[in-house]
């Protein structure tokens, strides 16, 4: 297969070895080359991916979504909700209003959770950074398993019939309908919105990308080969659960974690363990739990966290077995 990113590697090599005059085969050379190449590739894919997904998103508003999913039961609606979740990364401050909006429209609790689980888990910024660093195959595995995790987790919550563990006030709220957005945006307006979100998201995450790539680059250049294979390799059965349990409460920008994970994989961390850690960082965080506590009772939050955590650990093991 032709490597479409070859020109970036060429530029990174030129800059590192010729412009900066750092000798190849040195720790510094390896670090600097890693940093230059990663920064270019991540920002390029970020821009393309955010533009593309944001454009699609102009067609999928929460208002429309809750209408489509209202009163719908069945596994295929879990899949639909989860897929919609993949293209709609709302900041965690919007998850509560959306949750209430869904419940009020009669979207079953389980279907709502399929959406809620996937929405932060699979988002275009993380996908772009994963693709740029760990590769397309691992990224597809991440997206597919993340989507299925939303389907499965939501289905299980629906199956457990936990409706009574939603805060009572949620069922009393009436959602008005005056915020309906005009749906007749033209191509130029949609493109403008997409361009704005590229600016918005890149403006927010660039610093984390730089931090992550720099840490990853230093580790890549200076850490001994195979150091992680030795301590956190596939033959250590505790590595996956420990990685996930660290990732769950961690409120870290995943954009910084991804390049670090890339360098850890390079030193022998199994791919499944790394992906499970990233999923855990994305899927659940303490601030998100605190926000959800406003609408969910502790029992339901506990079940939600438990299901997602166990599923991610399982996914990590599975990847380590099949890769």
């Amino acid at each position: 297969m032709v490597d479409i990113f070859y020109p970036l590697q060429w530029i990174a090599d030129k800059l590192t070895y010729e412009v900066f005059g750092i000798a190849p085969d040195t720790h510094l050379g390896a670090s600097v080359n890693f940093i230059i190449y990663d920064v270019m590739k991540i920002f390029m894919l970020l821009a393309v991916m955010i533009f593309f997904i944001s454009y699609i998103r102009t067609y999928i508003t929460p208002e429309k979504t809750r209408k489509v999913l209202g009163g719908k039961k069945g596994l295929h609606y879990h899949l639909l909700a989860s897929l919609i979740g993949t293209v709609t990364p709302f900041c965690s401050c919007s998850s509560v209003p959306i949750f209430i909006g869904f419940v009020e429209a009669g979207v079953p609790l389980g279907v709502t959770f399929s959406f809620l689980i996937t929405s932060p888990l699979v988002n275009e910024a993380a996908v772009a950074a994963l693709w740029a660093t760990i590769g397309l195959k691992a990224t597809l595995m991440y997206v597919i398993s993340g989507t299925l995790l939303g389907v499965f987790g939501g289905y299980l919550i629906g199956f457990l019939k936990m409706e009574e563990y939603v805060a009572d006030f949620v069922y009393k709220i009436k959602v008005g309908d005056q915020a309906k957005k005009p749906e007749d945006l033209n191509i130029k307006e949609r493109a403008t919105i997409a361009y704005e979100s590229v600016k918005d998201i890149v403006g927010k995450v660039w610093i984390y990308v730089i931090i992550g790539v720099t840490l990853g680059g230093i580790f890549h250049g200076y850490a001994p080969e195979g150091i992680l294979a030795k301590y956190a390799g596939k033959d250590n059965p505790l590595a996956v659960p420990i990685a996930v349990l660290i990732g769950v409460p961690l409120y870290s920008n995943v954009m910084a974690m991804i390049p670090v994970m890339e360098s850890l994989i390079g030193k022998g961390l199994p791919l499944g363990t790394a992906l499970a850690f990233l999923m855990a960082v994305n899927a659940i965080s303490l601030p998100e739990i605190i926000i959800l506590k406003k609408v969910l009772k502790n029992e339901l939050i506990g079940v939600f966290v438990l299901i997602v955590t166990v599923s991610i650990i399982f996914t990590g093991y599975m990847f380590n077995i099949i890769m």
Partner: protein
Amino acid sequence: MKIEILGTGCPKCKKTKEVIEKVLKETGVEAEVIKVEDFETILNYGVMVTPAVVIDGEVKLAGKAPDEKDIRKWITE
């Protein structure tokens, strides 16, 4: 004029408030700016993606921070 900013404290909500106050100062338009944080009111307006801007009970924008041009238009209408 009553300007309500709907949002639950995300960074964009703060930005929305700053931009609105800036424009009010520049244009000298008198308005009462209120931050609405309770979900019930936010959802009663039909808003699910915050921040949103409501002027005299009418939702002007939801889901992103407004730019100065938008605000100028709304408050001088």
